[in-house]
């Protein structure tokens, strides 16, 4: 199967998951809190007259393990729904082929399970 990984802004986590489900019917995602650094500038803070800044901004990392057939569709769905319109920070998506995708509860391969096997 294919693993689709996406870095998105936190405000869009739900939106992206919904978009994937609506456009490809895929259900199943794991989300991790992340912080990121890219083209975008970080944040500044002040305390008792001192300033300091962090180059990082909060993001979320989403992992979808999907059938190869729909992988492209999932990528497309994510890219569209992750776009916030702000001038920076919307993140990336990429895919990797993965093997031995096994479903812990049943011990079967995820494909079988999703095929309702």
């Amino acid at each position, binding site marked *: 199967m294919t693993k689709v990984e996406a870095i998105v*802004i*936190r*405000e*869009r986590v739900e939106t992206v998951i919904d978009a994937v489900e609506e456009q490809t019917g895929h259900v199943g995602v794991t989300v991790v*809190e992340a*912080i990121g650094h890219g083209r975008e*500038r970080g*944040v*500044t*803070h*002040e305390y008792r*007259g*001192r*300033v*300091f*800044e*962090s*180059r*990082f*901004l*909060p993001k979320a990392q989403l992992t979808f393990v999907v059938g190869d057939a729909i992988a492209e569709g999932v990528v497309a769905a994510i890219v569209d729904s992750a776009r*916030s*319109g*702000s001038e920076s*920070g*919307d993140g990336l998506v990429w895919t990797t082929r993965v093997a031995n995708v096994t479903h812990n509860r049943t011990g079967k391969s995820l494909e079988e399970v999703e095929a309702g096997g």
Partner: protein
Amino acid sequence: MVENHDLLIAASTIWVVITAVLVMFMQAGFAFLEAGLTRMKNAGHIAAKNVLTFGLCSIVYWLVGFGLAFGGGNALIGTDGFVPSTDAMITVGQKPFDWFSEIPGAAAYLFEVVFAGVSLAIVWGAMAERAKLWVYFAFGVAFTLVYSVTSHWIWSPHGWLFHLGMQDFAGSTVVHYQGALAGLAGALLLGPRIGKFGTDGRANPIPGHNIPYAVLGTLILWFGWFGFNPGSTLSVDYGGFGYFAYVALTTNIAAAAGAMGGLITAWLVLKKADISMMLNGVLAALVAITAASGFVAPWASIVIGLVSGVIAVYGVIFVERIGIDDPIGAVAVHGMSGVWGTLATGLFAVPLLAKNLATGTGGFVYTGSLHQLGIQTLGLLAVGVWTFSASFGILWTLNKLWGIRVEPETETAGLDVSEHGMWGYPEFYIPVPGGYGTESHGHLGLAHARRTAPEPQHAHGAVPAPLPEPG
């Protein structure tokens, strides 16, 4: 023209009301001590139950407790003054509350009800993190009655232990030991929290979630104890005009010695200056000096406090060793140390002070006689049998009938979300609109932050970038 007697009433009433208010505030102390020494998932519940139980107790004590305790009656129980009227509360020194000769009935009620509330608060410490919510109501009512009977024995002029001259100035036995006895009964019937003892029977540490809370709780209790002990003169002249200041002194240095005793014992015995043990030491010392505060010399207060600190540390470990799960150490701090304080009074009571207070006689170290010590012991035994068996019986029955412990999944999920529908710190657990985890931040990335901190001048001019809000 103002009479001196009116002024005496005015001064005594100021004193008793203010000290009662300090004692009432001890509820906040228990709330934060207990919440601090238990887990995040139960923090709201643990703190809030003190509001619940003090509220309940205030009503029940007005209805029957005050009458049972101080409403005339026989050697065992008060039989008058239930649901007291406005009149009984605004008059001074009138039956059935004539025992309070310099303050209105209302001031007496107020002072006594906050004591009942403290005793009840102690109970739940040993039962924390696993009792069902309704149990606070049911046993809260029952314990208030049990407590009122005992306080009649020792503090009402009609009480049989009062007649024997038992010395319990502010309630090491009446308030603390009693609360601990009920808590012990509860802890035994509830059993330990999930995960407290490993399959091999070994105890696991379940650290409290917020030590600063526990420190705040302890300092509030120390603060409140200046109402608890000195206020027990119930007037400005009992023991002599301004004698209550002396009671405050013994209270303070005992607590101080308890802090030292607890911290140093932990440091030497556990090889760690455990903060929670220092705090337990302070409270154990305050508990012990409660009975003694009016009777003993300053040096004896220090001895009492130091020993209490040692008792706290060994007591907590001992209770755990015998398989009892007492999350905040109530049995050791209020029970064992309450016993110690009651006996210590029999050892160290200064004859002159006993005489000034017209209660009992001098202690063993002054008189060489075991008389007073014997009376103290008798009192402890009587209260121990009565309060433990009554509490155990009531809780046992409730347990048999409906079960007093929450379901395992309720306990694992935490009482806040299970019993009250919401965590004590929601944003750490769930998505809250605009809440934690949805803002723009992240707490890694240290070195960088350090390296580029610009010049202050710079800083002053700087207007921080409003955090970006996409979309």
